């Protein structure tokens, strides 16, 4: 499988689960992107969304492994308990350093490292959540020329995360759930 030239990041926390499932269900069977999902979850109670979804949708949805390629047409999940980073050779790496914003994996860390490598070929979505993780990451994505999207706080179950990103970043795209789902449905 060849490495992806473009990457789409989805960051979510409390209240983002259902939308993430809806996004993945809406994806076409082939797309040229690598999609990376990062959600805060407790490493001690591992809920294997990726396995459940993979079985239901009959497509590989896997945990992003250390030093593995970031490939086209793939959906990756960040493993709980580790930060997930993007390396210059377009592979993933893991890191168990301190939590950031009480989170590991940290959305900021993934967004920042991915933005730096993929530049304008990086898009990032920030969804519902009860903390401020992702705000800095979204800023870097925009600074490096990528596109940033935030779930409308009106529709988010927990509005802190999207609201914080909107407040800190100008010219950010605010999308309804329906718009987010259409975006992913229409990916080529």
């Amino acid at each position, binding site marked *: 499988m060849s490495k992806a030239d473009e990457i789409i990041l989805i960051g979510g926390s409390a209240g983002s689960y259902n939308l993430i499932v809806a996004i993945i269900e809406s994806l076409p069977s082939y797309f040229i992107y690598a999609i990376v999902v990062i959600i805060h979850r407790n490493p001690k109670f591992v809920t294997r969304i990726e396995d459940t979804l993979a079985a239901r949708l009959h497509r590989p949805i896997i945990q992003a492994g*250390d*030093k593995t390629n970031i490939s086209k047409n793939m959906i990756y999940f960040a*493993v709980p308990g580790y930060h997930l980073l993007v*390396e210059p050779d377009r592979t993933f*790496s893991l*890191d*168990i350093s301190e939590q950031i914003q009480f989170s590991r994996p940290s959305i900021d860390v993934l967004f920042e490292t991915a933005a*730096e490598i993929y530049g304008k070929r990086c898009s990032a979505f920030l969804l519902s959540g009860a903390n401020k993780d992702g705000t800095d990451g979204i800023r870097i994505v925009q600074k490096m020329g990528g596109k940033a999207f935030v779930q409308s706080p009106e529709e988010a179950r927990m509005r802190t995360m999207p609201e914080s990103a909107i407040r800190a970043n100008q010219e950010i795209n605010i999308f309804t759930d329906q718009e987010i789902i259409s975006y992913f449905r229409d990916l080529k």
Partner: protein
Amino acid sequence: MAKLSVSHISFLELQEIVDLFGKVSGYDLSGYSKSSLKRRIQRVLDLERMDVVDLKNAITNIESFQTYLMNEVTVNVTEMFRDPQYYAALRNDVLPYLETYPQLKFWSAGCSTGEEVYSLAILLMEMGLYDRSFIYGTDINGSVLETARKAIYPLKKIKSYSENYNASGSHGSLSDYYTAMYEAAIVNAEVRKNILFSQHNLATDYIFNEFQFISCRNVLIYFDMELQNKVFNLFYNSLVEFGFLCLGSKETLLNRDIMSNFKVINKEFNIYQKIK
């Protein structure tokens, strides 16, 4: 040297720092994962309010800064009985094989502040193997090894270590193995007795003994593929035949050439046995 504005390091500058640091200090960072290394160096710049030029000057001119930088670059986060199920796997799938040896040597590579080493010692005590065992704990970072030798940990941490211990399937209580004093706990002497902590750099140092068991968890993630393969070779050469290599849940031998010399004992925790 204090700067008012924050300075951001680029990958190009990172490469220059790695080259310079290698030349003047002998610490070889060239095989470290670039993005996490860059974050660690950036962290030092932020802490010290330095820019890249300051950093280069300090590396070149201040010898004590070299050790400081190397220590700051390493990530030392650890726990006792981290991944409790891993310890259950050792108890069930690994240690029973070792019972026939009259003498056992264990190596915990990248042991940080020692928690992993003491966890292993406790497990060996509970399996009745500790009297004939010796554990070497090594790390590149001399300052975490100091903490490891002292064997004193804040009670706050001990609380979550106890939860891990209980989840690992042990029937005792972690408090059997430490003595609490004020805000801290010291690991008891009978746990500490058959352990040696010493400095060893996995990237540049060689074999120093032969082992029945090597564990190296949450260390290889900081290395690129090439350096990982080099370290796998070091481990292979340091293991006796039928010795065990335990890498933990996120670091794997699968898809590496050297895998043909090993057999998988536990897939989830990447426990392998050397078979040839």
